[in-house]
């Protein structure tokens, strides 16, 4: 049964008819056309689908869309402001902190969630927070450095 679900998406209100049990990841990617959020495992084990819900990093593959009703959702597409990359995005570019790039949106969103709540994380806090995000290409060292750089700038 469809319901009207509304939430704030990247700072703008959205409202649409949807089966409330649909998975947020797929609603973002198909219904709302935001393909930056990726599928990697479907079970919350890889972090490729990470988005921010009310200031906290969440796995969108584990959320039914009704869970974000009336909340604020930020995806990778919401980080660029006035054509300017977010400091995290800039730092990922400057540190070459990616290879295939498929895990990158999830990495950046999880790091964004970390910096929202812990603006000056220690290296071990970064590692602990990012440990659920998998990167198969092995850009880990640079991702940590990029997060450290962005934290300094923010």
């Amino acid at each position, binding site marked *: 049964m469809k319901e009207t679900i509304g939430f704030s998406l990247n700072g703008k209100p959205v409202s649409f008819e949807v*089966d409330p049990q*649909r*998975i947020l*990841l*797929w609603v973002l*990617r*198909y*219904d709302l*056309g*935001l*393909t*930056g*959020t*990726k*599928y*990697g*495992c*479907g*079970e919350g*084990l*890889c972090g*490729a689908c990470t988005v921010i819900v009310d200031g906290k990093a969440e796995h969108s593959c584990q959320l039914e869309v009704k869970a974000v009703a009336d909340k604020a959702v930020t*995806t*990778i*597409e919401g*980080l*660029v402001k006035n054509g300017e*990359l977010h400091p995290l*995005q800039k730092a*990922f*570019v*400057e540190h*070459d902190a*990616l*290879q*295939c*790039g*498929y*895990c*990158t*949106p999830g990495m*950046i969103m999880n790091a964004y969630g970390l910096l929202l709540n812990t603006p000056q994380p220690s290296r071990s806090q*970064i*590692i*602990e927070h*990012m*440990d*659920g*995000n*998998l*990167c*198969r*290409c*092995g*850009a*880990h*060292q*640079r*991702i*940590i450095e990029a997060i450290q750089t962005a934290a300094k700038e923010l």
Partner: protein
Amino acid sequence: MKREHKGQGSVYEEYLKLDEVGPNPSTDGFGRRGDPSADGRSPLRFDRRQFLQFVGGGIVVCFSIPDSLALQEGERRRGMGQELPQDFNAFLRIGEDGRVSGFTGKVEYGQGVITSLAQMLAEELDVPLKSVDMVMGDTDLCPWDMGTFGTMTTRFFGPAFRAAAAEARAVLIELAAEQLQVTKDRLKTKAGVVYEVAGQKEVSYAELAKGKKILRHVKGVAPKSPSDFVLIGKPVLRRDAAAKVTGQAIYAGDVREPGMLHARILRPPVHGAKLIHADTSGAKEIEGAQIVEDGDLIAVLHPYPDLAERALAKIKSEYDRPVPAVDDKTIFDHLLKVAPQGQTVTEGGNLAEGRSTAHYVLEQTYLNSYVSHAPIETHTALAKIEGNKVTLWASTQTPFALREAAASLLGLPAQNVRVITPYIGGAFGGKSNNQQALEAVRLAKLSGKPVQVAWTRAEEFFYDTFRPAAIVKIQAGVTESGLISFWDYGVYFAGERGAPQFYNIPHHRTVVYGSGWTTVPGSHPFATGPWRAPGSNTNCFGRESHIDMLAAKVGMDPVEFRLKNLKDERMQRVLQAAANEFGWSPAKGPSKRGYGVACGTDAGTYVAHMAEVAVNERTGSVVVNRVVCAQEMGLCVNPEGARLQMEGGITMGLGYALSEEVRFKGGEILHSNFDTYTIPHFSWLPQIKTVILDAKDSPCQGGGEPPIICMGAVIANAVFDATGARLLQLPMTPERIKDALSRI
């Protein structure tokens, strides 16, 4: 109007005006303009003029990859009736807007060639890097290519690409000489401009290309010498990063076509199972679900993947499961039993004589398990069929092979199929078979709609072409003074790559039993295939573990022992470089420091790793504290990209060394996700240092695969140094480490 020019040893044709170029009446007469895919024909069907018409105005230089394998493939594709204007694998074009485009069938899956190839073009052409675009893996726009694998892009493609750019620059200078009325020897190039030395005259490449239609094939123009490099050898950041950090980069799963449906396919529970019965009635209850049944293929199509999944879950099925014959423990005995006859790939001296001079003889068997590629992007493809024309967007390392396979599946000529390769979310050798894309083609044909197949993680683990389980058996002897006297080596099911040893051993033999991935019937219970540096990881683990044991046997430091037994100066240099960076001080193993060393060669590159580990002897867990990797890869085009690949190889290699192992019972894969198949996490990360040895005067070698090959051996040797326990099987799980400790 056509003029013939002779210059720099090659003939080229210059067409003065675009509209003078018409269709060639001697062909089948489809001289179309505009959209190159309008009638579904590839430009590779064109003759020279049609080809020129397709690429538009400007200066085009075509070239071939001078690789024997590519040449063989060239024979093959001619046999398949594909006509090329000339036999070439790639081309570059200087457009009338001054932008330079490189067209290649090679693809980008993270290895960074989208940056390094552009760097080569910019260097040889003297244009700013930002004015270069790479067009990759589109079978309508790019000439045929056999596939992106084997660390071959920079090694084999690179030199030809540079030569083509050098040729293009020579053409530009000739054109400028005519236009500026200046002799060629007074002209130089810089930043997309030809200028007169000590003069006022200059003209941009854009102006020179305007209204021109020049096509040349490269013949013997020498690229720049290393002392003239401005860009090659300089660290350059990834050119695809901005698209990737904003979520704008398009992967196969991000492509949307009107009316497209998402497929979920009914899968057998184990390899070899036969479907007895399926009841799809439950799936039909999901609104919008469309069931497709065609022989062995049962699938649900739905506009939304999560609802397709929901519908698939409602299908009740029953399978006849074969009795499991082998599992992850018995597989090694099984493989030894079914191994094909060995082939001696290298030998020298006389093994019996070597045995007689040995003071110690050491015999050992090394095992490694099946491992998964596990790219974070699962196999994905979207197929669209319109009339007799097919467009495929696929996550693939082999777009041209896919084009042929899709065409053959549908009974169409290959040129009716266009494969577009968007960014690929990791591949590592695992995205060469294209099963998912052919499934999408079949479902698009059956449903009449564009269909996307994106494997779930469980499907990815089920259909992955795993790195084969393999066995290495070595018998070797050493003299009292620490010289290796003989080396008798056999490898089963990993293949030849990395098998021949490179130490100075008078009596030796290397025998290879079975290829790394061509299936011997009755051997592996599921598909296997190439996995990053195929063969080398297995062979390096066996060889370098055994070398370490010989060193310990004669009470020598493992680095000194290697250097003493090496004559190869490149390897000596690489080992020394790693030792310097690591701060290695000689000690007999096990020294309790947890230091390990291993070295090897792969894809023409020499590599040495050193690692420091800490072993918890109670739990059997290993922490890798630091890894140094020194690599000599000839001319290194982009040191930043190379370091990124080295760090990536080290980090990825921690997985097959410590945790990655496909557990199975017959054809049943006991992993469906990352909870039980554990790949490296942030918390495993050692301190990593990379050293690239200067070798800019020698040809480019491989960069992306060599840095992973020593990871099993270097950690095994470090574990031995820490504890005295010798690990003979990869991965070195806590269970195996505790077992090894108990046997000291």
